[in-house]
């Protein structure tokens, strides 16, 4: 009976799975005295147990929640500023806990790193065990099949020894052709299939580690930069030409591949048929001429959802707006300033705000805060305060408030191009100054107060806000994600099962018995055993009792 016992142990245990895996045998808890190594081993076993994995998984889910309720520095920096202004004291607590940077905080990292250590500690022994299992033939046929799932027995029997052996041989052939790995014992066939289930499961878990490593290691090579380009102007991929850049840890300016993009045209399509959506934007297209040293200049387009892949970077269209082109002249009529100024859209009708800074060439430094209305509503309909009623460039108006004083450009500190610090400035035209602000339509010129000079609105063009990204992790992450998915399907839906066919002698006659054993979820086990029993008994011309 010793062999019987061993085989039933083999049936149930899967020693390299964590000891609290559902299928693992219950091991008696012993309390040996633990030395240092013993403690380490105990700790390691705890960390790599199913229960710990489950706990850490649920902890990750739970720990991710606060960061979704509070704006995050990385994805929504303005939201963070607003939130801190609204809840000053509570924000201090959150700041201390790193909740505004949840996903790179120490505690969040600690949890997922522990989880992945546990995962690796789980994968390694299981992989070794699985490689072994792949090389090991199926286990011995159990002594009795009648207590196993799907058990069936033929009612007819064969009598001759040759027939009995032939039955076993045909059982072997049948199981093999059904995709089972088989092993013939004396009077029985033991078969197993679905090793791919475990392979898939391991690939799934290993690929998860792959994703984490790709992001963790590759993340230092990612950099992203921003550049605002008015139509007609160019962007060159050199460090000095970026408006801003956030370099990864391993970024070096030498790694920028030289290329140049000239924005030739920017098209916007508005909805004009559907009155429920009148004026909604239905398409943006940026036309660029792209040139790289040693290659021909080509025409390309950049759209939302369709970035341009060039020189090791992807170029995305992330924003756009109007850029009034203004010319400022001194009292002698000499041009001291002329350029397009990108204005930031403020609402769906593209009312936009922008700042003009003229530091040199006039008697004083001049700063202007402007509002731009692409389609100004006539005062009869909308009242005196200018409003835009459509985002298209139909009836454009630019209004300006004028300041003089220190623009703060000489201090060497970086200043925001889109705002004016009024501390050292004096308002000389516009509400609150006693003088009316300036109002300009394309082609019009207005006098600056105090005889400072003139300003002309030449025309209004478009600009595009481009994001330039270099992300070498993408391909790796994608590859591992595909493996995660394939591994998942294989690991979940391929049934791993054992099937036995046994010739049993009873009163000098040989009956055949069939049974199976599921290893993991296997809803169709009984059907599968029945199908094999049906085919086999048909081959032998025997009939069956259910």
């Amino acid at each position: 009976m010793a062999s019987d016992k061993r085989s039933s142990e083999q049936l149930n245990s899967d020693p390299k799975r964590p000891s609290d895996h559902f299928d693992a045998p219950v091991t008696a808890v012993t309390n040996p005295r633990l030395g240092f190594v013993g403690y380490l081993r105990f700790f390691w076993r705890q960390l790599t147990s199913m229960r710990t994995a489950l706990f850490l998984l649920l902890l990750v889910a739970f720990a991710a929640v606060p960061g979704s309720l509070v704006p995050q520095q990385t994805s929504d920096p303005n939201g963070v500023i607003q939130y801190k202004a609204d809840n000053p004291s509570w924000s201090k607590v959150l700041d201390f806990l790193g909740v505004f940077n949840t996903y790179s905080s120490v505690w969040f990292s600690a949890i997922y790193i522990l989880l992945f250590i546990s995962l690796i500690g789980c994968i390694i022994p299981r992989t070794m065990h699985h490689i072994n299992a792949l090389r090991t033939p199926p286990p011995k046929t159990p002594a009795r099949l009648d207590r196993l799932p799907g058990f069936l027995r033929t009612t007819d029997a064969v009598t001759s020894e040759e027939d009995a052996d032939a039955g076993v041989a045909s059982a072997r052939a049948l199981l093999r052709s059904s995709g089972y790995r088989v092993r013939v014992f004396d009077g029985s066939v033991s078969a197993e299939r679905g090793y791919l289930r475990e392979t898939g499961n391991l690939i799934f878990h290993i690929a998860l580690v792959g994703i984490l490593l790709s992001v963790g290691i590759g993340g230092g090579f990612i950099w992203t930069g921003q550049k605002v380009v008015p139509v007609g102007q160019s962007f060159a991929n050199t460090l000095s030409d970026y408006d801003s850049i956030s370099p990864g840890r391993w970024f070096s300016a030498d790694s920028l591949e030289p290329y140049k993009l000239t924005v030739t045209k920017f098209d916007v399509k508005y909805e004009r048929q559907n009155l429920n959506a009148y004026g909604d934007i239905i398409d943006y297209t940026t036309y660029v001429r792209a040139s790289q040293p040693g290659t021909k200049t080509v025409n390309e387009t950049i759209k939302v959802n369709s970035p341009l892949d060039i020189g090791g970077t992807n170029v995305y269209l992330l924003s756009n707006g109007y850029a009034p082109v203004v010319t400022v002249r001194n009292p002698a009529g000499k041009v001291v300033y002329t350029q397009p100024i990108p204005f930031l859209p403020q609402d769906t009708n593209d009312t936009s705000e922008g700042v003009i800074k003229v530091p040199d060439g006039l008697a004083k430094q001049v700063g202007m805060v402007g509002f731009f209305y692409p389609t100004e509503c006539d005062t009869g309909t909308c009242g005196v305060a200018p409003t835009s009623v459509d985002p298209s460039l139909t009836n454009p108006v630019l209004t300006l408030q004028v300041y003089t004083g220190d623009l703060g450009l000489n201090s060497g500190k970086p200043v925001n191009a889109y705002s004016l610090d009024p501390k050292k400035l004096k308002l000389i035209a516009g509400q609150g100054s006693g003088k009316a602000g300036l109002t300009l339509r394309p082609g019009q010129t207005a006098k600056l107060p105090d005889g400072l000079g003139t300003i002309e609105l030449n025309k209004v063009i478009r600009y595009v806000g481009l994001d330039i990204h270099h992300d070498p992790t993408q391909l790796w992450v994608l590859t591992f994600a595909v493996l995660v998915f394939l591994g998942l399907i294989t690991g979940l839906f391929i049934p791993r099962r054992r099937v036995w066919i046994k010739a049993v002698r009873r009163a000098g006659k040989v009956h055949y018995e069939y049974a199976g054993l599921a290893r993991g979820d296997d809803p169709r086990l009984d059907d599968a055993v029945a199908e094999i029993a049906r085919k086999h008994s048909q081959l032998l011309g025997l009939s069956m009792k259910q």
Partner: protein
Amino acid sequence: MHEAVTQATLVTDSLVGIYSAMFVYALAFIFFTYDLAKRMSAARQVIAAPVAAEVSAKRVGQVAVLDRPAGPPPPGFEVAARPTRSFSARLGMIFTVMAWILHVGGTVLRGVAAGRVPWANMFEFTLTATAIIIGVFLVMQFWQDLQFLGAYVTGFVLVFLGVATTNFYVDVVPLPPALQSYWLVIHVFVASLGTGFYGLGAALSIVQLIQARRAAKGLNAIGAVPTAEKLEALAYRLIVVGFVFWTFTLIAGSIWAEHAWGRYWGWDTKEVWTFIVWVIFAGYIHARATRGWRGSRSATLAIIGFSAVLFNFTIVNIYFHGLHSYSGL
């Protein structure tokens, strides 16, 4: 202008379809509920005669209740007849099928009116996802009698259709550039498939908890409802399919995010919640493989997971304005 008129007609037809579907679902709900009530009272059937020794009976309050007897009942006892396929449940099924045809029709018309797939805002997504829930529920019937879930499923869908038509409704408008992508077709549709499977899995888990609790109290199982173990196995199979769809949704969403926003992952609120849901269900799958966590504990995880799906779809869409502001509200 002619185009606009036909579009307006289609939109109205679509709404008529949805409202009619809601009416018929309501009928189905009534019949399913009636059927459930009957099953419950049958399970609570009081035995008038004195309890024989060989029949194990337990006292609950003042009422003796018969355990589910193994084999034929002993002479002298009448065991509550179990209506396996009651008339009212069958009516419920017929109405559900009718309602579903109207529902799918209304959803398709909405897509035709918009000239694109009908899942580009919360209103449309609700129409599609609820149609999928009912679709999966109906298809499952070929495999396993799930009529006991009829009241839950039709009730759930009715509530969501009601909220969608009154609170989520938006006119047909063209897609903003960010949503013009074939990933909208794939990503969002697979997300609704996942939602459908999770929803049914969670429903089975709820019934599983009820059955387990009744069994623990020694009460009769509810008539013609599978045992807790059977329900757990069914729930697992549905949830695992849901998990595969959800994994795909997560991957497809990252690819789309890369195209549209220039990064595949940015911890945007919607991304975080999709991730949380994924991790909870990974936990569920693990729980089912961990000793001591099968049964009611893993069922509870499934229910929490689906609650997170609903939270992600309702609260996150409405109150958190991340990049995913596609609700149209």
